[in-house]
């Protein structure tokens, strides 16, 4: 007992300043992250801001029940998953391929130039990106015109439910391909050059070298990124959807988070929206844990 106390005393004496330094960040996380976690309680209430968490009526799982049985449930879940899965299938491999292609370029200046240009869209705000997407894909926009000339819809792509998810993913790729490729480029540059030398001596051409040296060399990076991405399966870029969708495209564009935004902030159904949002976060967390567990079991690479 005494030993513990002297240890604590020593820790306090030595690290008093360190505690002072960490305090503001802890306060920040407490207020803006842990207090909202406590606020999740309102998913089980009929929360009214005037009555507060203690005065509002408890309703148990009612909001969850009404969401699961609602007309929108299936559509929201399918849209969320479809957008996310399509995004993974398309943009995830693209950033790896982009890094691999850059890696094969011998001219350093050309490589640097392409890289620099590829990061530029990352610095443009979502509002501007969505503004440009609107310009290009509304009726008469140049991308709409290209599709119209090839036999696509004549009245613009953006308002067309069949094209909405494609527009979303295409603009994601445009904005983040370069940024996402950075970590693969750095992983590629960390591969031991002697491995390539050895492969060449064994008679491996460029293709074989890529297959047996390059890809295994970045495999653990790929797996980590894949866990992170799959673990966020239910997270879609809802801010972007809010800027691009319209009632005409709710059919394919409305996802759980945009529904939470509309119900909670535009209709003030606070408790119902919180319940829907909680459903989304819990599924996300479960998927992340399962992916991490699977990865640890089969590939010995994991987040924790």
């Amino acid at each position: 007992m005494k030993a513990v106390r002297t240890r604590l005393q020593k820790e306090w004496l030595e690290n008093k300043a360190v505690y002072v330094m960490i305090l503001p960040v802890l306060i920040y996380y407490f207020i803006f992250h842990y207090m909202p976690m406590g606020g999740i309680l309102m998913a089980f209430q009929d929360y009214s801001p005037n009555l507060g968490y203690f005065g509002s009526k408890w309703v148990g799982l009612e909001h969850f029940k009404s969401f699961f049985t609602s007309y929108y449930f299936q559509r929201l879940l399918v849209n969320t998953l479809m957008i996310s899965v399509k995004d993974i299938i398309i943009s995830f491999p693209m950033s790896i391929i982009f890094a691999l292609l850059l890696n094969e370029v011998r001219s350093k200046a050309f490589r640097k130039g392409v890289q620099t240009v590829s990061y530029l869209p990352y610095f443009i705000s979502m509002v501007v990106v969505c503004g440009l997407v609107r310009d290009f894909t509304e009726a008469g926009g140049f991308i709409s015109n290209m599709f119209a000339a090839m036999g696509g819809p004549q009245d613009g792509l953006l308002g067309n439910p069949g094209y909405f998810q494609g527009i979303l993913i295409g603009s994601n790729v445009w904005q983040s391909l370069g940024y996402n490729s950075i970590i693969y480029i750095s992983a590629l540059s960390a591969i031991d050059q002697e491995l390539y030398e050895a492969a060449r001596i064994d008679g491996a051409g460029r293709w074989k070298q890529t297959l047996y040296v390059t890809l295994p060399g970045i495999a653990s990076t790929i797996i980590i990124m894949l866990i992170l991405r799959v673990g966020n399966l239910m997270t879609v870029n809802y801010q972007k959807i809010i800027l691009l969708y319209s009632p005409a495209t709710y059919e394919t564009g409305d996802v759980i988070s945009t529904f939470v935004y509309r119900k909670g902030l535009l209709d003030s159904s606070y408790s119902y929206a919180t319940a829907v949002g909680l459903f989304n976060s819990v599924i996300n967390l479960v998927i992340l844990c399962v992916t991490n567990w699977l990865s640890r079991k089969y590939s010995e690479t994991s987040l924790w």
Partner: protein
Amino acid sequence: MTKRTNGEKVFAVFNTCILLGLALVFIVPIIHVVFASISDPLLLSANKGLITWPLGKPTLEGYRLVFLNNVIIKAYGNTILYVVSATAIGVMLSCFAAYALSRKKFMVKGFVTFVITFTMLFNGGLIPTYMVVRNLNMLDTRWAIILPNCVSVFNIMIMRTSFNSIPDGLEEAARIDGAGHWRVLFAIILPVSKAIIAVVVLFYAVQHWNSWFHTAIYVTNRDYYPLQIILREIVIANSTSSLDASGEPGELNLSRMLVKYAVIMVSIVPMFALYPFIQKYFVTGVMIGSIKG
């Protein structure tokens, strides 16, 4: 260099073409904005295609209208205020937290790390967070724009990784001379960490410069609007009516498209202007982040 086989030569040509094509895809929309912003207003209004050269006689009319518009100038000033203060707070808190978490002997290190990183896995969600801001009486204040997102786990972690890699010898020498933690942080750690500080400043500044959603849900007072919210009205709702209050309504309406592109330009130019100076750090930062994700 070993001699290249024919197959490799074909691949090299093919590869160069693909990458050139991609580079073009990245840059063309940006060129479109640049040239649209100096095009002839009437031709621009009628135009629907991709602009790869200024339409008509190049003019700075759009910029004149933008810089004469009180609504835009005020929003620009607000944005600068929010970016500077939120970045300053964020960088300061991140430095402190990163220093604490890079100590070898700090009893609650594991606990604090867990508390911070857990928020990446799970959060209260949109509505409970909104309620916290509301219950703090921060709705419709500038604080609601500055505080709720001023610290990011990612930035703390890349700073900590960087602080961890500073040789212990430097710090021990100072400790022996009797320097406390504050002295060690300000006199030893921070001066050798200029690169990582630049990275974190960049990440925070870009984030705050471009953010719009939290302002949109927390603030309705137009006096507090940052540029992105005004931009949203102009480029998403395609309306310049909010700008008209400050005079010259007819003129603005005629040049609506021109104004739109000129505003986009003045909103992205500061980021692009910053970029060349900081590109090296930017890439390093993302890489450090990826090692210790």
